[in-house]
């Protein structure tokens, strides 16, 4: 009796160990692939961030006789402005980057919600068509969007200036409008971001990125709206809530659990929106719309400062990590109101 119990528990123990190991066996191939394509470059990059790696070292890489280990000099140079690069102050770019992401989200989320609420009106004609239409910007690559909007804001031939010209013509002015949207450096509102001016390009890019950003928010809000039970509005209308009171007291709080993660996602998207920024303004004028990732690219492509670029990428990695942790935390802290 006693022995059989023991044997059973022994073999059960074996089975348990097997069960614990098995998942790792399955993960092994993926781990091998990731080592080659992810971990190796990552570690390599950290190593060269401590060197003065330049074009001359490309051939022999780490074995290059000219390669010097310079400790944290690259990091110090980046933060203190010691890089041989014009118009670059790390903290200004960082502030602008955060500002850029925050202001985009602050515009996209309310606009997305508002449009979702309007399109959700009962008995609205052609609902399905609108829904198909606003998915379009979500599926068009940001490169295309950036290029198209760059053309729209072209000083001479852009649709925006032509449109404005047509408008001022109505008021009797004959001069064509020639606003240098993407190249004018003098800021229209100098005090708005004290750490560095917001050029016209910023506003132009806000407009263009709005086109890119709101549909996703509308998509999420539409889904969330449909999950709000209709009888809550009925109960509220009997309780005495007007349309706008229902919006603020029911719609907004019940959309919150869906919109906060969406906003966090939007924030990280805008924060790292390389394609769009690179193709629309290239970070200009005078790096005023540069974000961290476009600057990292510039360090390699134009300035060939591989070591500094590597160090910069490591910094960006940590910034992104912090952004991720913070947004993740905010997202999880937003409890869902739905049934547990």
């Amino acid at each position, binding site marked *: 009796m006693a022995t059989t119990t023991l044997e059973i528990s022994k073999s059960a123990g074996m089975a348990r160990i097997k069960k614990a190991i098995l998942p790792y066996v399955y993960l092994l191939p993926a781990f091998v692939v990731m080592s080659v394509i992810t971990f190796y470059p990552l570690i390599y990059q950290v190593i060269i961030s401590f060197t003065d790696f330049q074009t001359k070292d490309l051939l022999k890489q780490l074995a290059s006789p000219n390669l010097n280990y310079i400790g944290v000099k690259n990091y110090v140079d980046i933060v203190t402005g010691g890089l041989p690069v014009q118009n670059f102050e790390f903290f200004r770019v960082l502030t602008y980057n955060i500002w850029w992401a925050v202001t985009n989200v602050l515009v996209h989320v309310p606009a997305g919600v508002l449009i979702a609420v309007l399109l959700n009106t009962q008995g609205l004609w052609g609902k399905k068509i609108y829904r198909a239409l606003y998915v379009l910007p979500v599926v068009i690559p940001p490169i295309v969007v950036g290029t198209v909007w760059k053309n729209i804001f072209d000083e001479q031939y852009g649709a925006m200036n032509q449109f404005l010209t047509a408008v001022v013509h109505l008021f009797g002015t004959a001069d064509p409008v020639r606003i240098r949207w993407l190249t004018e450096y003098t800021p229209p509102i100098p005090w708005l971001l004290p750490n560095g001016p917001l050029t016209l390009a910023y506003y132009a890019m806000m407009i263009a990125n709005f086109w890119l950003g709101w549909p996703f928010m509308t998509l999420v809000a539409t889904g969330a709206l449909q999950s709000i039970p209709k*009888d*809550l509005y009925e109960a509220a*209308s009997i309780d005495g809530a007007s349309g706008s009171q229902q919006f603020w007291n029911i719609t907004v*709080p019940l959309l919150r659990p869906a919109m906060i993660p969406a906003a966090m996602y939007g924030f990280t998207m805008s924060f790292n929106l390389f394609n769009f920024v690179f193709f629309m303004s290239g970070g200009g004028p005078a790096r005023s719309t540069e974000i961290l990732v476009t600057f990292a690219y510039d360090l390699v492509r134009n300035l060939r400062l591989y070591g500094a670029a590597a160090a910069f990428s490591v910094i960006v990695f940590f910034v992104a990590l912090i952004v991720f942790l913070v947004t993740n935390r905010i997202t999880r802290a937003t409890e869902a*109101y739905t049934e547990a």
Partner: protein
Amino acid sequence: MTSVTYENVVKKFGEMTAVDNINFHVDDKEFLVLVGPSGCGKTTALRLLAGLEEISSGEIKIGDRVVNDVAPKDRDIAMVFQSYALYPHLSVYDNMAFGLKLRKVNKDEIKRRVTEAADVLGITDLLQRKPRQLSGGQRQRVAVGRAIVREPKVFLFDEPLSNLDAKLRVQMRAEISKLHQRLQTTFIYVTHDQTEAMTMATRIAVINKGKLQQIDTPQNLYDHPGNLFVAGFIGSPAMNFFPGKLRKDGDKIVVDTGDFVVPIPAAKAAPYKPHTDKDIIFGIRPENIHDADFVPPNIDAEKVAVKVDVTELMGNEIFLYLVSGKNTFVARVDPRSKLRVGQQAQVMFDMDNFHIFDASTEEAIR
């Protein structure tokens, strides 16, 4: 004085008529239950009163005021929804206070009313919780509490107990009745459950297919159903029906079902005389069919030969499922009955308590 009046009320959804020309009057402080099978239009009738649906034609009055074009919030009503419709992001306290805050009632008054209602409903401990942290029964109380604090002139309930388990339902039934006595206001209560209707209502309105069938006190509905539908709907187990004919047999009038013939007592025969040879439906409730060995004294009992198909022992009574020719029916007999499955036997129909309906109009003949 808060009465409620439905006058020729019609509600159509497209081609579909959900409420078909309903007329009734609910007196002040009455507990009216609208009862009927699922999909008969009860909820729609209630929502019309609440102002959540627009009336297609007719008038609804609360007191003397026609409310057809009055917004829900200005009708001085409160409603308890079947789903409870609690605001999921607000605490129990805030759920109850919501309507009062919107009406700019001052803070102390809100607090007084909410704590008082919570006290009455026994949910004082739950005031800080969110709805998702409550059981079904607790949510139901909060929904009632939200209605009470508003101190409305009319309370509307839409199947408030249908999401609760059987035991809790019985308990809440009693509590809602108590609440009605305590508040002394008009209650209009929708349910598909005739037991709920019978136990709570001062009057019941039976609805079928959008039409009002009959409105009366529970006892009168039970004793004098106006038509076949009401007769079958009110009472559990349901009344037994036997299609048949009224025939003259000498100086008596008899019910002939083809399988058995029972004479109508002379004292009751008068209303049926004009209907001889008509197709009718004979109805008798299960408790008015007795085991021949246990017939109560002084009733006008008639023998019917049957075969016992199924027996259900309930402890204080026995349900017998009986077969007589092509008819199967239920009897609710004395628990001492010795009748067993498969047995050929005689049961006694109490001919002081029967119902006869015109087979074509389904109206009661009486």
